[in-house]
């Protein structure tokens, strides 16, 4: 048994002896860790490469605004002098599917538009009506986002972008999520091939069923997916090939938009290109990944942790005063300051570890009970109509726990080191004569 084991054993004994101190210390650390972890988990869930959005770190989103040129009168159908441009099938194919820096590109309805595009499904017998979040996507959508198919298949390339002779078929096809399928048809039923009705006359034939995903992964989320038709494709998604950057996408599209502007006398087009992180956070920030954002958040987290750190520091100082005679005795028998600091840090680590475990449990409870608040208030997730599903990978990422734990361990260390160092500077005789 080395010194460390002895220190840990003493720390455990002291935890039992000084229950109030240990309890407050552990609770303080646990809350600090929980607080840090909730923020970290929210941002991690929004920004990291997690299922089904596994390419977030190299995903680029493109939208285009169109402004009516000065002096041009807009028609009633056009609605106003500004519009979010819906990419035509030709532009999708020519600009995006053939983009040299794109590993793959696809199109989808923006998540922001989905609240307004809730669809009310009716079973063929007319008995069940179910509101679902719908989204128009192309075939590549299911290659970019790794949805797991329980039944059936994704859209084929021909089905995914409805143009020409494929446009507006009598019975359109759809992919639905398993939770919707179970509500409509019951558990364990394969609904592939079944027909869904909506708006009384329109029909959908189910070709696939996917596992439900969380609305926190907002760009891939949906309960019902249609093939894109002209006018649906408001946002393009590009997964960059390795070695390419968002600037390559901008450079490639700049010339094409310029030509489009030259050819259109009525509208002027303005391209918006952003990374996944920029889309989720703020376009103004030059943050390309969740790691950048986490590093940007760290100073704020440290400042927020300063208050509990100062409180812990006061507690440690009071405890160190009580332990002065012990420190004096240890020094009398040959302990060096370095060894005593090592001991105090080890004891502190035991309490921090306990605080970390309690903090982890508090984090899970907070994220379970207040998940809607946490993800929508802290996370600015666009679709607020759906209760977020908080999945395992989001809740427990060892990396996030490690980062949160390290942040709090450093804060605790700072809270411990200063009072410990100050108390160890006391002369031995003075320390030993200190009344407990």
């Amino acid at each position, binding site marked *: 048994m*080395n010194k460390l084991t002895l220190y840990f*054993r003493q720390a455990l004994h002291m935890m039992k002896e000084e229950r109030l101190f240990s309890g407050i210390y552990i609770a303080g650390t646990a809350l600090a860790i929980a607080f840090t972890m909730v923020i970290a988990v929210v941002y991690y869930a929004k920004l990291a490469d997690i299922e089904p959005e596994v390419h977030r770190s190299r995903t680029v989103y493109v939208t285009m605004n169109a402004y009516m040129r000065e002096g041009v009168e807009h028609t009633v159908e056009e609605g106003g002098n500004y519009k979010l441009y819906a990419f035509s099938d030709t532009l999708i194919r020519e600009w995006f599917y053939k983009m040299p820096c794109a590993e793959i590109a696809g199109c989808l309805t923006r998540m922001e538009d989905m609240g307004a595009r809730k669809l009310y499904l009716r079973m063929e017998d007319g008995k069940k009506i179910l509101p679902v979040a719908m989204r128009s996507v192309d075939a590549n959508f299911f290659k970019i986002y790794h949805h797991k198919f329980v039944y059936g298949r994704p859209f084929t390339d021909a089905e995914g972008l409805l143009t020409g002779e494929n446009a507006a078929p009598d019975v359109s096809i759809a992919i639905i999520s398993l939770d919707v399928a179970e509500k409509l048809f019951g558990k364990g039923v394969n609904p592939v091939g079944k027909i869904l009705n909506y708006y009384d006359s329109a029909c959908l034939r189910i070709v696939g069923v996917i596992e439900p995903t969380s609305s926190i992964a907002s760009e891939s989320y949906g309960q019902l997916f249609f093939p894109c038709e002209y006018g649906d494709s408001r946002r393009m998604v590009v997964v960059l090939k390795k070695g390419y950057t968002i600037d390559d996408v901008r450079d490639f599209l700049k010339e094409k938009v310029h030509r489009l502007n030259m050819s259109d006398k009525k509208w002027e087009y303005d391209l918006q290109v952003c990374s996944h992180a920029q889309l989720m956070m703020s376009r103004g920030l030059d943050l390309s990944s969740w790691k950048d954002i986490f590093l940007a958040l760290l100073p704020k987290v440290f400042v927020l942790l300063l208050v509990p750190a100062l409180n812990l520091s006061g507690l440690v100082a009071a405890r160190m005063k009580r332990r002065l005679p012990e420190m004096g005795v240890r020094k*009398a028998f*040959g*302990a060096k300051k370095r060894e005593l600091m090592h001991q105090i840090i080890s004891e502190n680590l035991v309490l921090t570890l306990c605080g970390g475990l309690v903090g982890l449990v508090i984090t899970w409870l907070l994220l379970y009970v207040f998940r809607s608040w946490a993800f929508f208030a802290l996370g600015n997730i666009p679709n607020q109509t759906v209760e977020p599903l908080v999945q395992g990978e989001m809740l427990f990422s060892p990396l996030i726990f490690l980062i949160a734990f390290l942040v709090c361990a450093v804060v605790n260390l700072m809270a411990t080191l200063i009072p410990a160092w100050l108390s160890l500077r006391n002369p031995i005789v003075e320390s030993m004569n200190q009344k407990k």
Partner: protein
Amino acid sequence: METIIKLTDINKVYRTEEIETQALENVNIEVEKGEFLSVMGPSGCGKSTLLNIMGLLDEPTSGTVELCGTTISHNLSDNQLAEFRNKTLGFVFQSFHLISSLNVIDNVQLPLLYRGIGYSERIRRAKEVIERVGLSHRMKHTPVQLSGGQCQRVAIARAIIGNPEIILADEPTGNLDSKMGADILGLLKQLNEEDGRTIVMVTHNEQQAQQTKRIIKFLDGRQIQ
């Protein structure tokens, strides 16, 4: 005989902003190797200060301390002093100064822990000295589970485990009843006679002091006998 402790012209002055107190004045003491010396005097006469200076727990305002032939210079660092104390000195205090969160065996092995000795050797030696002070059956007990006499026995075991040349005992029987006090004094005498350890003991008890080989007396910071 070899001189193991030599204090030359030791002065100790405690200063505050308002008051200056001379705790020790021109103290000159030599202690031979293997001697059992008692230091006596009324409360506040400087006995404990003297012991603290001998034990390198405190620094004199002026004067020289020599221990085991080494002159303790002001230039020695805290770490060097700690190492010297660890190897050369053993302490027994009136209020035992055992660490309440450690059990007997862990308290006793403390000096060896800071000497960097391995676990099994520490435990072997700790068991040996605990057996010697007659507490084999209390090894896993914590200090609060022991009587005063037993606590002092543990403190003696801790003082001798590192095999130091010198044991400094500051009123080791002051907190004990007469029977337990006699018991502890017997143990110290045994360490002196059988092991040849040099012991300097501060005491108020004339009867106990008479049992040691030499007595020096202090009054108001001065050695009077």
